[in-house]
């Protein structure tokens, strides 16, 4: 019953917005901040483009039916950068969370580097690595590394000393504490960091793809801009949003399976 109520409450707003959008475009509204609705594609044009981009057969240009190619290009860049980030950040975070010495040696450097936004890295990365897929992967890596690192450190530091004592008195060897207690206890926090990182990864991959590559959603919307295909821009935006949403859902599903119904520490 309340579920139905929720749906009924949520439904009108999108329809109102799409209606206003349609009317605004056909009436060529001039909105504040120089927003000229005449330059916006109609909802129907976007819908056609979405269908054509996904399956082809409607518009028949270079982008028809190329959705899967671009999705694969963007997703593989996100996952590659994310994987490298996780491989570096998890062990580093565990070491920093466990050892005062390692933390003192590494933490100040990280605090200095972290305020530099990933977008500020773009020009340097493009020159050092050159145009191409690699540069985008590196930018995704930079975006993913901090959330995973910080959440891993926090999770490891928050392991209750009581659980260490319990493990010790039950006969856990000191070296085995790491995977018997520290990692299981910190896992929820580490996975949360990974989830945040994946979100950042999808943001940055679009930025990275706007230069020097011909595949990926970022390159699609930039090329669409250069050829004034506004319907394609909006369609690309929609697919980027969907891809990020789907990745996040997959990640939360994975977290649920990994943690089963245990409480978050």
């Amino acid at each position, binding site marked *: 019953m309340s579920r139905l109520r929720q749906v009924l409450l949520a439904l009108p707003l999108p329809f109102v917005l799409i209606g206003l959008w349609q009317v605004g475009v056909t009436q060529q509204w001039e909105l504040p901040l120089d927003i000229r609705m005449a330059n916006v594609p109609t909802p129907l044009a976007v819908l056609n483009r979405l269908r054509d981009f996904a399956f082809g057969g409607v518009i028949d240009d270079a982008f028809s039916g190329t959705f899967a190619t671009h999705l694969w290009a963007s997703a593989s860049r996100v996952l590659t950068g994310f994987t490298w980030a996780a491989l570096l950040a998890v062990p580093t975070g565990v070491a920093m969370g466990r050892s005062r010495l390692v933390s003192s040696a590494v933490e100040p450097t990280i605090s200095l580097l972290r305020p530099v936004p990933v977008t500020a890295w773009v020009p340097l990365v493009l020159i050092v690595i050159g145009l191409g897929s690699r540069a985008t992967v590196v930018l995704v890596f930079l975006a993913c590394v901090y959330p995973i690192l910080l959440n891993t450190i926090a999770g490891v530091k928050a392991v209750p000393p*009581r659980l260490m004592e*319990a493990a*010790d*008195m*039950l*006969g856990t060897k000191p070296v085995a504490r790491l995977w018997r207690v520290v990692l*299981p206890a910190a896992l929820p926090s580490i996975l949360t960091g990974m989830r945040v990182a994946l979100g950042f990864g999808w943001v940055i991959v679009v930025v990275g793809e706007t230069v020097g590559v011909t595949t990926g959603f970022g390159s699609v919307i930039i090329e669409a801009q250069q050829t004034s295909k506004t319907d394609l821009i909006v369609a690309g935006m929609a697919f980027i949003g969907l891809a990020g949403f789907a990745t996040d859902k997959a990640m939360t599903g994975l977290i649920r399976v990994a943690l089963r119904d*245990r*409480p978050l520490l």
Partner: protein
Amino acid sequence: MGAPHSETVVSTRVSEPSCATTALSAVYLDGVGKSYGALEALRSVSLSISRGEFVCIVGASGCGKSTLLRMIAGFEEPTTGTLMVDGQVVSGPGPDRGVVFQDYGLFPWLTVAGNIAYGPRRRGIGRAEVKAVVERFCGVVGLAAFADKYPHELSGGMQQRVAIARVLANGSGVLLMDEPFGALDALTRSSMQAELHQLWGELNSTILFVTHSVEEAVYLADRVVVMTGGPRHDTPGHIGATVAIDLKHPRDPTSAAFNARKRELLAAIEAEPTVASTPG
């Protein structure tokens, strides 16, 4: 308060462990002291616990009960004195001494069965045998139906049973319990006391049990160690008296004899803290 001494004949004495008791003792402390920086928490604690004995420790907050237990467990090192378990000097925690914490300390990512199996698995015991041990001790603490539940799905009393089953399944000969029933309601608490006492009889383990409840101590113990002192009394914590409880089991908390022991114990607790003797 200066309670008048009751007419009971049970002796109140400070135990004087001699070298002869060392080999026989499950737990042996001689002149044990503990300082945290400038704070001297414990001084000159000497105590000898025989195998199979059930000893309760009572005393005001801050007199060092937990500190004493944690040193025997091996979580902390004594600053002075000798501390032995089964004739071996304690050098860190080990599965020969099972600890039951007041806050349970269960692994939240393991089920009841997983928590109980944890110790046996670390000892490299075969799968089938671990399964048998888990089944046995789930049954012993009455949680057979909850083996696949996670700790957060259980009540406090049930979690404490898991914590007890976990150390029993690990074959610990010495059980160290720090106010294990402190967080339980009165009803659960008294049934847990009866169960623990029965288990102790069956498994023949040595138990050192810290409690704030005089009644609990008289109900469970062969011997009650009364600790006094602590920072609030400007003297380090130490053993004030030892009271033997020579009542037959099962004990009836409403009986005259039971209450006589309670009065005696209360008098020992409320006595002015003696000044801890200097280590020597």
